[in-house]
């Protein structure tokens, strides 16, 4: 009962942060601020939904002593790690390419990279 509650709470945290990420993608004014919302919030939300699957697998493993559930937990954990790393590196690549392409941060206080890379 408690573990079901933990799984449900993890899923709710994950989906609420995913929702916030997509809301930020729709509401923010320029590319870099949108990227803040998508990178952080969707990575965190997907980590939590995967973590609920890890908890579910470990629970079933200790409940039934069947090793296939250990496989479920380990593979969900690997998928979570792959997701976190690829998201961070991919967003860095898109931000760098966008600045080289000439997209300026439109409401911006200062832009030091503009002075460095004219």
């Amino acid at each position, binding site marked *: 009962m408690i573990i079901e509650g933990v799984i449900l709470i993890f899923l709710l945290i994950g989906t609420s942060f995913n929702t916030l990420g997509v809301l930020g*993608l729709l509401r923010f004014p320029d*590319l870099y601020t949108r990227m803040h919302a998508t990178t952080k919030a969707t990575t965190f939300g997907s980590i939590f939904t995967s973590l609920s699957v890890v908890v579910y697998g470990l629970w079933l493993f200790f409940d039934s002593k069947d090793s296939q559930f250990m496989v479920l937990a380990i593979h969900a954990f690997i*998928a979570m790690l792959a997701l976190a790393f690829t998201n961070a590196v991919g967003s860095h690549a*898109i931000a*760098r390419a*966008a600045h080289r392409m000439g997209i300026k941060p439109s409401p911006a206080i200062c832009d030091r990279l503009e002075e460095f890379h004219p």
Partner: protein
Amino acid sequence: MNDPWILLPFWYPIIAVLVILMAGSTIRLYKGPTPADRAVAVDTVNTLTVASLILLGVAFREIIFIDVAIVYSLLSFVATLFIAKYLGGEL
């Protein structure tokens, strides 16, 4: 014979919410003024897809389905890097 999978009722509603969020980021794909915005929207859809793939694998009670999520996340990373290389003019 008793089933070792304990049935939990809340996988499918969460997956439905994630798919609705994918449709929401399609709006940014439609509106986005620059191609970089569209690339960010596609990247968001990929992340949400991987999350829903993991949940769907559990909902279908097939462990081998989780491996598809790993392969999918790495392949979508390749596509994102390719788009970024083109946008930065380094291709």
